[in-house]
């Protein structure tokens, strides 16, 4: 079931208000996205923990409604 990029961005920002979110619709089908999420909340977390935080923000949609989201997370560079 397709999901639009704005919804994904909003869900992430609800949990991680300072996040800079860049989303790409890879296949143009609303089903395969790549997201880059940059947030101070990731400081000191492992990559697994950072991705878990984003998945948590998506409230169970990942792997279900949202089939494919290639995820990249990082802490802001100027920190």
């Amino acid at each position, binding site marked *: 079931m397709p999901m639009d990029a704005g919804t994904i961005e909003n869900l992430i920002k609800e949990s991680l208000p300072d996040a800079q979110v860049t989303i790409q619709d890879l296949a143009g089908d609303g089903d395969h996205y790549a997201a880059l999420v940059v947030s101070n909340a990731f400081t000191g977390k492992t990559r*697994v923990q950072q991705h878990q935080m984003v998945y948590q923000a998506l409230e*169970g949609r990942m*792997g279900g409604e949202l089939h494919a989201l290639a995820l990249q997370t990082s802490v802001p560079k100027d920190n």
Partner: protein
Amino acid sequence: MSEHPVFDRIKQEVDDSPVVLFMKGTPVFPQCGFSATCVQVLSNLGIPFKGINVLEDPEIREGVKAYSNWPTVPQLYVKGEFVGGCDIIREMYETGELVEYFNTNGIEIQLANPQ
């Protein structure tokens, strides 16, 4: 957490083999692009691993998501520890962290295509 009997089976699997990939399909015939990517990374590094086809085992398929607190498959385990899914494996491979990770865990790498 003992209300999930499948957790015991998963724990057994990740403890029994040093490198375990929960995946869709088999290492020879991956049935999903993300699983195929992980197989390719491990193969490039010459890492022997056990592939567990979650498509053949619905209980493991759902169980491993809860076990790792990770919503998707593939999932890579090294020495009983969850390392990540496809994006993390790929990123670690590209930055060289994955090689370091295997070295640290005493798993021998045999580069198929040395640079």
